[in-house]
């Protein structure tokens, strides 16, 4: 397991390095190093320090946040297909953020994040509530379908808001497809702190999360307050989703693919699953970000579109395994 951790970290570091070197113009390692250590005002230093470095950091933070959110949602719903994008939580956060931008013109991080988190929390409550009204426990696929449709609904509401404000429309359109580029570098530190805080909190609760992923009777027999734990986990996931949407727009499928990848590598138990999924999510987001610079070179593709292309095959595979009776 130590080897696996080391390999994942190595991949992450390699991708981070690549992310600093690659772009419309390749920057040689010596120049990147000089820019990072010595700073300076020349063009290369500016590109590396103010464009590529924050971009890589944001990709890492968002990827990790979404992966942790995915793990939490999958544990709470006992459904490996649950993730912030598919359950509509990202769409809710995006709608709330667009609403705030449209109404107030505010583009600072704090109000945007507050709005996105509120939207994410509300949507998570609605989707889970709707799924539960179907009678008894939410069936896995119905929960997902409810999430997808709620996401469609929120997307069309977002669209109505968008056309009402021509000024911000083009910018918001790109943001709505997910992007790590051209974000305010000042956002990096506070966002990293918040994600880290929630991540550490989840790690501390890893034993309880393990119990939660067993069935309900076992959980209550072991003295766990299932309802309270579940509520806390959903809140945590929604907050992480809100942070990441405020930072980078809705980025789909990271929360699905990263935990799945780590589970396939044989990782069980939240104490290991959470940190490794976070690393894998960061690596995945960074990889998608690098691909997005080249897939329609010289234009930049929204990372959300790239992630969809990477994530849809994973979703199809999970659905297929389910249909084939392999179980989840």
């Amino acid at each position: 397991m130590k080897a696996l951790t080391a390999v994942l970290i190595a991949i992450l570091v390699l991708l981070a390095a690549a992310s600093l070197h690659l772009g419309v113009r390749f920057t040689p390692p010596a120049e990147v190093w000089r820019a990072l250590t010595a700073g300076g005002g020349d063009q290369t230093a500016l590109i590396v320090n103010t464009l590529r470095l924050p971009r890589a950091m944001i990709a890492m933070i968002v990827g990790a946040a979404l992966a942790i959110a995915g793990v939490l949602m999958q544990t709470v719903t006992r459904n490996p297909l649950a993730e912030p994008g598919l359950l509509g939580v990202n769409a809710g956060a995006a709608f709330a953020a667009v609403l705030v931008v449209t109404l107030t013109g505010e583009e600072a991080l704090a109000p945007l994040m507050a709005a996105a988190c509120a939207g994410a929390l509300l949507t998570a409550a609605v989707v889970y509530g709707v799924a539960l009204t179907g009678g008894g426990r939410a069936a896995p696929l119905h929960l997902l379908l409810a999430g997808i449709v709620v996401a469609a609904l929120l997307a069309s509401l977002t669209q109505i808001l968008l056309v009402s404000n021509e000024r911000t429309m083009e910018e918001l359109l790109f943001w709505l497809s997910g992007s790590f580029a051209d974000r305010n570098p000042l956002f990096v530190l506070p966002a990293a702190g918040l994600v880290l805080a929630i991540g550490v909190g989840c790690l501390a609760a890893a034993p309880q999360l393990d119990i939660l992923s067993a069935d309900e009777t076992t959980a209550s027999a072991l003295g766990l307050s299932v309802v309270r734990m579940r509520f806390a986990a959903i809140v945590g996931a929604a907050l992480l989703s809100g942070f990441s949407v405020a930072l980078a727009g809705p980025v789909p499928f990271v929360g699905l693919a990263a935990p799945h990848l780590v589970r396939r590598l044989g990782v069980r138990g939240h104490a290991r699953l959470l940190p490794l999924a976070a690393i894998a999510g960061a690596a995945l987001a960074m990889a998608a970000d690098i691909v997005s610079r080249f897939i329609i070179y010289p234009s930049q593709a929204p990372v959300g579109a790239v992630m969809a292309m990477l994530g849809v095959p994973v979703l199809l595979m999970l659905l297929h395994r389910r249909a084939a009776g392999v179980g989840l």
Partner: protein
Amino acid sequence: MSAIMQGAADRSAMPRHASAPMLGLVAAVLLAAMLAGLSMGSSPMPLERLLPALIGQGSATDMLILWTLRAPRVLLAGVAGASLGLAGLVLQRATRNALAAPSVLGVTDGAALGAVAFLFLFTDPANMLTVSIYWQPVATALGAAFFAMLVALLAGRGNVGPVSLILYGFALGALARAGVTLFIVAGPVYRASQAAIWLAGSVHEARWSDVAATGLVLSICLPAVVLMARRMDQLLLDDNSAMATGVAVRRSQFMLMGLSVVLTAGAVSFVGAIGFVGLVAPHAARLLLGLRALPLIAGSAMLGALAVIAADIVVRYGFAPLEVPTGAATALLGAPYFLFILFRARQNHA
């Protein structure tokens, strides 16, 4: 031919559903909605001015507004809505899945991908098309057909439950949407915001040529769907029983899927990806008209037309002077309805 005659015999044997009065009622509401669509707008036209203008005897301004702006818009909404309603009904019967619809199964997104891919591939650096725009519907149909085929292939293997089928459709739809985004960002496709409005579905800026093209597709497909009515009824049975009634199940399903693809592409080419109409119209029709395919065909088409015309009136009136995409309004109506069906179906299972 004999199949048709058999069908006629069967129909007379079946207890007659009181569908004729209900269909008449739906037609009347549709007519009223069309008149409302024609008379409402930034300069409202009351009936006493609308009717003369309709028969060619109104004032010059009224005639201009009516015949170049509103009539094509209302007709395009109606024809596209009818196509989508029919496409949904046919798809629900072909997949035996009450939740199926072109927009739900990714067919609409596939069609949109075909359309933007066409614009991307055949636009020169000066933003001029290198081939006639009339090829665009063909590209749209190819995109729709490709994604319908993918869904059918994935779902055809093993026994896929109704909800899984929808999820396969959604996953492929997400893939198509990602492709659309890439083409829009990469391509010289006008301005991104315009493309976004078109993708969300919109009937503003309707032209007579659009009405004619969409109408042509509908008028070719509608008789084909009517001819398939009996098979659509037989497909309500499970595979073995359906085969026992003498229907070639797989071939009928394939033909119905094909019709659904063509109808979807015909609509999406000219109005963009208006969602949820193909889901809601057949459902509403079934509530009003029962299960038999023939009245359902008429009902789904009329209710689909009604839905898009009404949605267009809502966005024109409710959000003026903004140009909110019509598809946003149909989604606001359709998405909650989808959830309602989803959970009612689930409770029946339990």
